[in-house]
């Protein structure tokens, strides 16, 4: 793994000077945005790239996770000589608004010195982007070389390209969608209800006193995790194999490996994520409908954009399947934008964008090279 020195990794926290006007009508004061940068901003400030993170991601795209110590979530893509080349680009990755890694979220203290908890306003994907545009303003970056994102990161990239159209020359959107479908919303609602059903959630006021709603959050993560994998991927990895035993126990232990795996995923997630953040961020995703923001016609969202677009989907992704990327691509075509679209073949379902898919490396490197 490339060390921090080679990456020129730096951690920053920006406090926005102005209140952040939110789509919900409220204005949030004293917003802090935690972000990492990699590489060097060139003299004319033309080589900056924002990477937007996904639902449970964070700003440590290529540096070790502050809690788990695991390598950055996209370290295979970001680094010297890698597809998103830190020797060429100045990379910015910020924790989203509503998050729990330093950017203002429900666990942050409100003006009265108490954690916001459920008094935190409901936010949107566009609000998340708004907060990150604050970083560009603070750094004096007029226009980005590109915005890049997978999954919820792709939604932010689309929102950025649509609403701050003059501020990026390119947008790369991977395994994403222009709107949450009923099925997407349904899965999120299962997760939220699991959190809220946990007695330790206490209407969100669990900060300060012992453990939060870990059981509920773990169940939410388990349900969501299933949507990130493909059926055949799961079958190949686990099949009906039993966990550390030769016979079924005729009980409700984690007999099957897939159960054990999911329980582990759920449990370890609670070490690194705030349950209220999970509520707010999933809500923002559910509210996302880029066409709705632009009079109901998706093409109209991109009329003002002069950016190049590249959309990538994966054949085994059933969370944001290829049809969603195609809808965006067709809207961009109708708007006359230069757009590329490709469906890549990979066995890992929605998570493919984070995993070893060499074709994705080629597409990203090639698209950003221009």
């Amino acid at each position, binding site marked *: 793994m490339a060390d921090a020195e080679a990456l020129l990794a730096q951690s920053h926290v920006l406090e926005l000077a102005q209140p952040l006007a939110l789509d919900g009508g409220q204005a949030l004061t004293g917003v802090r945005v935690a972000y990492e940068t990699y590489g060097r901003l060139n003299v004319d400030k033309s080589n900056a790239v924002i990477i937007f993170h996904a639902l449970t991601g964070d700003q440590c795209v290529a540096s070790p996770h502050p809690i788990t110590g695991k390598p950055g979530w996209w370290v295979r893509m970001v680094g010297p000589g890698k597809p998103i080349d830190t020797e060429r680009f100045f990379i910015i990755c910020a924790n989203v608004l509503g998050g729990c890694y330093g950017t203002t979220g429900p666990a942050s203290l409100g003006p009265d010195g108490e954690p916001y908890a459920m008094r935190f306003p409901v936010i949107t994907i566009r609000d998340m982007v708004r907060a990150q545009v604050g970083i560009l303003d603070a750094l004096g970056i007029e226009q980005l070389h590109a915005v890049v994102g997978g999954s919820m990161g792709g939604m932010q990239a689309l929102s950025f390209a649509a609403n701050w159209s003059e501020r990026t020359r390119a947008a790369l959107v991977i395994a994403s969608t222009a709107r949450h479908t009923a099925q997407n919303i349904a899965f999120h609602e299962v997760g939220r209800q699991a959190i809220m059903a946990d007695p330790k959630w206490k209407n969100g006021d669990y900060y300060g006193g012992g453990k939060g709603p870990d059981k509920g959050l773990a169940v939410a993560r388990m349900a969501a995790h299933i949507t990130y994998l493909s059926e055949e991927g799961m079958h190949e990895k686990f099949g009906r194999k039993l966990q550390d035993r030769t016979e079924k126990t005729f009980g409700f232990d984690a007999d099957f490996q897939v159960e054990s795996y999911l329980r582990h995923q759920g449990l370890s997630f609670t070490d690194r994520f705030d349950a209220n953040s999970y509520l707010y961020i999933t809500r923002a995703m559910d509210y996302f409908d880029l066409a709705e923001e632009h009079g109901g016609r998706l093409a109209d969202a991109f009329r003002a954009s002069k950016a*190049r677009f*590249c959309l990538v989907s994966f054949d085994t992704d059933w969370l944001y399947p290829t049809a969603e990327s195609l809808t965006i*691509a*067709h809207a961009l*075509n*109708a708007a006359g934008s*230069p*757009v*590329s*679209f*490709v*469906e*890549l*073949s990979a066995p890992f379902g929605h998570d493919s964008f984070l995993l070893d898919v060499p*074709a994705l490396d*080629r*597409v990203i*490197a*090639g*698209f950003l*090279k*221009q």
Partner: protein
Amino acid sequence: MTALRPDLAVIAANVAPGSRVLDIGCGDGALMAALRDGKQVDARGMELDPHDVAECVAKGLSVMQGDADSDLIDYPDAAFDYAILSQTLQTTKRPDQVLDELLRVGRKAFVSFPNFGHWRVRASLMWHGRMPVTRLLPVAWYETPNIHHVTVSDFRDLVEAKHLTVEGAWFLSGDKRISDAAASWRAEHAVFLLSR
């Protein structure tokens, strides 16, 4: 840069500079790159093979993964000055309908295809009674993507039946030009420029 395939070179030479082009079945984007770099053409592509699409994106080209048979419908009328279909017509399910679509999305259309009436093909059928495997048609009948073989004469008939205008026609054997009169049996490749 490597030299363009002869039929693509003909097309590249006859596209007006600065025009808008849709290259359907653009492969690795060689023609689009040549048009962009040599003639400041705004070139867009469509290609079925994801590896080729990735290759195009890596060249900085705008290419949609898609199928000539089904996906041209997503483009608005007259969105392009030219629609280009090179070496692809004979692989489509309904070449006649694809031709209609080409001249809907493009004001003009370049169509190039291997001539199944070439004398080698005729000889192979005549003497051996078998579907030919030649330099330009190197794949056996059971696995060839060319499901609608077409001759120069067939194509001229279709153009006439559809009342299309032939704005230009070029016939090639290797990279040599063949006269219109001899094209039916001597041309390996045909390139037509059509309008409605």
